[in-house]
């Protein structure tokens, strides 16, 4: 394994008197697929917000490719190659699907002109299977389509790390399979993936490493099999019954 691409050292974030993240430390290696799980309100999205500068860390340090990026602004994160998708999709509703992706290419992907940005955008639409919707308005897409659009937009920014905030929430089983295949293809291109996910099926089939967040603290960091056996994780998040079921189904495979 190569050098870590992203390093967090004792990152905390408070909102007034509420400590949302408490001294989080971990690192991501290049090309890794890491999942972040934890109960609602554990601080998963806040952690992504801290990394991308939406709500910068109150203390601690974040280094990306050896550079200190603790106080960066979101647009700087985007230009550096730290792309993210939102749990609640954020399209530009009155633009076409193509223009949405071109925005990512033009501003985040450092393209010099509109023409190049459009070319990249078409390529990414092809890759994500949205090519036939290129000229539709973004608001006309289904939820699954809009989630794909978020992915295409992020990919157009030439990310080094892609942070996916519940890209599978609200999708049906076949749509999830499609999204999983897509995420694997993105990872195959060497993009480091940091995925927030509630569906254990997705986490177990995709992630090489799992981080567990509970009440703003990191309570576990390890490979998926260890995580489902960790009593603290079972107590905080999985539940006795569910953990047993996962172990049984894992035994069958």
């Amino acid at each position, binding site marked *: 394994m190569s050098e870590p691409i992203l390093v967090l050292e004792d990152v905390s974030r408070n909102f007034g008197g509420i400590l949302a993240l408490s001294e989080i430390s971990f690192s991501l290696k290049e090309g890794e697929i890491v999942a972040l799980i934890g109960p609602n309100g554990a601080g998963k999205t806040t952690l992504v917000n801290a990394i991308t500068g939406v709500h910068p860390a109150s203390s601690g340090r974040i280094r990306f490719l050896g550079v200190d990026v603790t106080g960066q602004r979101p*647009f700087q994160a*985007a230009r550096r190659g730290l792309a993210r998708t*939102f749990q609640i999709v954020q399209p530009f509703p009155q633009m076409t699907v193509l223009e949405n992706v071109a925005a990512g290419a033009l501003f985040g992907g450092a393209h010099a002109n509109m023409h190049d940005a459009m070319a990249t955008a078409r390529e990414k639409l092809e890759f994500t299977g949205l090519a036939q919707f290129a000229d539709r308005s973004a608001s006309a897409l289904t939820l699954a389509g809009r989630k794909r659009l978020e992915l295409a937009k992020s990919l157009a920014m030439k990310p080094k790390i892609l942070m996916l905030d519940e890209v599978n929430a609200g999708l049906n089983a076949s749509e999830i399979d499609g999204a999983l295949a897509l995420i694997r293809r993105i990872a195959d291109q060497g993009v480091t993936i940091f995925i927030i996910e509630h569906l254990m099926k997705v986490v177990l089939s995709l992630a090489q490493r799992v981080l567990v967040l509970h009440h703003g603290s990191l309570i576990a960091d390890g490979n998926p099999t260890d995580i489902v056996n960790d009593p603290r994780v079972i107590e905080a998040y999985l539940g006795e019954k569910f953990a047993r079921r996962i172990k049984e189904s894992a035994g069958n495979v």
Partner: protein
Amino acid sequence: MSQATRYVLFAIWVAALAATPLWADNYTVRLAIIIAMYSALALSWNFIGGFVGYPSFSTAAFFGLGCYAGALTQKAGLPMVGAWVFATLFVGAFAAVLGVIILRLRGHYFAIASFAIVEVVRLVISSWGDLTGGGDGLNVPLVTGGPDAVAQTFLAVMIVIMLTVFAVTVFVDRNRLGFGLRCIKQNENAADMVGVDTTRYKVIAYTLSAMFCGTVGAAYASWTGYIDPSDSFSVLMTVKVPVMCLLGGAGTVFGPIVGTTAFLLLEEFFWARFLEYNRAILGAVIVILIFFLPGGLLRISYRDMVKRLTGRVSQGAAP
């Protein structure tokens, strides 16, 4: 209507405005100057209000500051055109500094803050009597020549300013700046996330929306030869200009010009016919227009409308 047709119509319109001294009386020439002047103001507002969708009510502050910056430097001995350029840069710099502060606000809060600036600047100007003459106003060195010559000169000046702002609008519209501003309008958080430096883009748009108001103000001061705080910082202007832009179609290249023309011609029409109630009638007309045409006059599909009307007629004719 294709974009090329729109450019041709616009060229004809500019030529018609420019030719008013040849065929019309001084009153019409004055109206043409006012149309060109307000077109420049509406095009300016379009940068922040149309492209970015931030409801700015600062127009009168920028216009008024332009009046005083131009008048004072002209009195201090700067040649007239030099004073206009100074006013442009001064107001642009003022807006850039101000923008960094107030563009943190969004929506209604931004609207209120931008409106407050008009009052603050007006109070400062009227209280600073030593420099600005306070409520007594300020005399500006008069342009030499008869009324006809003066009107022709300022008609040309206002048209040149209008065309300059129009050219900048076309440039911004086609450039990445315009694309970024539209991203901010539709979803500011998403724009930030795809790498648009939203603060810088908004400040640029706000500055663009201000600097040409400064030019117009300075030219207006030279034209009328006298300015005072209540005329320069008129609340009516700060509301009228956004209405003109919205009437034509905010965020489009031609919308501000169509809207300004429609507004001023309507105003003229009601002024001439209903001396007492003209403002009330005009207000009602604006409310109705904006209520039924939220996208502005340019968004109507006139072809569909004709089709629907003729369709109805032929249906009605059938037994």
